[in-house]
């Protein structure tokens, strides 16, 4: 059975230097090919969980396995090699504003390249071809030579998706990818994630806020509440009762504080 797991997280804790206990013993499995959505209020630990999987944050305790290999404490070259297989898309898109769209997409290939040619911008022609192909997948090939900050929010997020596709990722982490977009754009961005998941076979782990999007796109759902998993199941199982448990009670607690 273990061969169909792409990520195994066990008893994961994260305490920030400020004393915030963001994750309190989270254990979960991500299966190959699924579209796993993580829901929960802001501050419930969703972002921290994703960042612990590709080690942008160091877990305080517990373990993370990627494709059966323990990556909790790996460093240097080994860590960079693992990261090349894990794409990530962020809420704020995090593009290099002053660079062209094409160069932003090419940056996704950095982990595969030698330092000197990458700094000189000497990307091989097949890389550029691949970048244009990926831009075509997200439907913005015609903007390849525009400056990244000239694009709208939705377009920038599509560039970010194309950038992560350059890594030929086995896993795509998406940290609230539509939280800064309007509802119509949100839906179209989610469709690109669905396309990446279904047509390219990339496993997706996505943090989301809107339950309507969760019901439409997720194949499985996990809910976090103040650093602990409170729900694990399928989108159609989130009824009124669960909704209240995940969002309602927490809201009351927040008011008390």
């Amino acid at each position, binding site marked *: 059975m273990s061969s169909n797991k792409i990520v195994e997280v066990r008893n994961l804790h994260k305490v920030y230097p400020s004393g915030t206990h963001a994750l309190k013993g989270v254990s979960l499995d991500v299966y190959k090919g699924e579209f796993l959505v993580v829901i929960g209020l802001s501050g419930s630990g969703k972002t921290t969980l994703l960042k612990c999987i590709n080690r942008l944050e160091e877990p305080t305790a517990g373990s993370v396995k990627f494709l059966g290999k323990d990556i909790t404490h790996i460093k240097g070259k080994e860590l960079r090699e693992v990261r090349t297989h894990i794409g*990530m898309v962020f809420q704020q898109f*995090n593009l290099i504003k*002053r660079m062209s769209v094409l160069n932003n997409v090419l940056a996704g290939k*950095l982990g595969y390249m030698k330092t000197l040619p990458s700094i000189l911008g000497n990307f091989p022609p097949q890389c550029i071809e691949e970048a244009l192909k990926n831009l075509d997948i997200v439907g913005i090939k015609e903007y390849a030579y525009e400056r990244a900050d000239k694009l709208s929010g939705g377009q920038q997020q599509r560039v970010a998706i194309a950038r992560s596709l350059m890594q030929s990722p086995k896993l795509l982490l998406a940290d609230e990818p539509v939280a800064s977009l309007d509802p119509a754009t949100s839906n179209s961005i989610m469709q690109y994630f669905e396309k990446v998941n279904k047509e390219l076979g990339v496993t997706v782990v996505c943090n989301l806020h809107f339950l309507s999007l969760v019901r439409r796109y997720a194949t499985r759902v996990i809910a976090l509440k103040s650093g602990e998993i409170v729900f694990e199941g399928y989108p159609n199982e989130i009824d009124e009762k669960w909704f209240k448990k995940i969002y309602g009670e927490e809201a009351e607690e927040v008011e008390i504080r």
Partner: protein
Amino acid sequence: MLDPELELHPKEKILRKKRNQEKIDLVKAILLDSFFVFYTILVCQRAIYYKVILDLRELPFSWNEISVFAIISLAVGFIWGYSRTSLGAKIMGLAKETKFAKWSSEIFAWTLFNLTFIAGWLVTKISIIDLFSKEGIEGANRIFYALFTPEFGIFDDALFAIIETIYLALIATLLSIPPTLILSFFTARNLMKDNWFTLSIYYVLRIILNFVRSIEPLIWAIIFSVWVGIGPYAGMIALLVHTIAANAKLYSEAIESIEEGPVDAITATGANKLQIIWYAVVPQIVLPFLSFTIYRWDINVRMATVIGLVGGGGIGTMLMQYQGLAQWHEVGLIVIMIAIVVWIMDYISAKIREAIY
């Protein structure tokens, strides 16, 4: 397996931290109070008692006296600070909410300010009489008249000297760019905080740069005029050294204030440190760097005129020569030319900086 810190409730941990912090703050408050009291005693004795009341020319000095004052101050500071009614306690945010604490700290603060002002007045020997005496006014008239009737006979010499100054400032600024760039990456905390080795490089470089920067270019010019001889070369090196130290700080602050998002994004692609810096950091700092550098050229032109006064070459050296000979008409021409050049440089650098943003 679990970190022992995790067993403890976070709230308790924060509380423990707070208590420790309060202890450290109390010690700081007591030391501050002791210093304030010590300062008050010294100013009262030396500036007010000796100078005003006794009107002494030579002030007596004895270590015994000073140590007695220091012990008294420490005692007063301890009692006052520990009771949390003092100015030090107020500054550290530990003061009690009582009326006495409020009054004692406020009155003491005013006393300190007024004492300092009075002592400062006495030390600078402020005299209204000197400013408006008859000979004084005549001297001022003479020099202002000369300054406003410049002697144009030395115009071509002065022009050559001021061009020398501009080039000197330009070369100092241009040569400063490569070392400043390299240093700024090593003095940016967000790039160096990852392990103790890079962090110690960061601290050592910061200390050296702070030291170099705290020495004014004028003093560097004196040092280098002894080292390489009087002239524009000494002035250029002096400006270069100070520019590197000053701009490395500005550059590194620009690096520290970049958006972290792109750094995260490029790190997540599996890029190495150099690639992260080149792709996520450098594009964010190119404009501020350019802007700082152009502004610094402007500053350096102004400084170069001053540096000339101590033998750094250019228009400043010429100014000093005519001033030494009391040829005020020539000085007038030089001052006017400096003013015009500085004004033009200021205007050009502002325009360029506007254009690149």
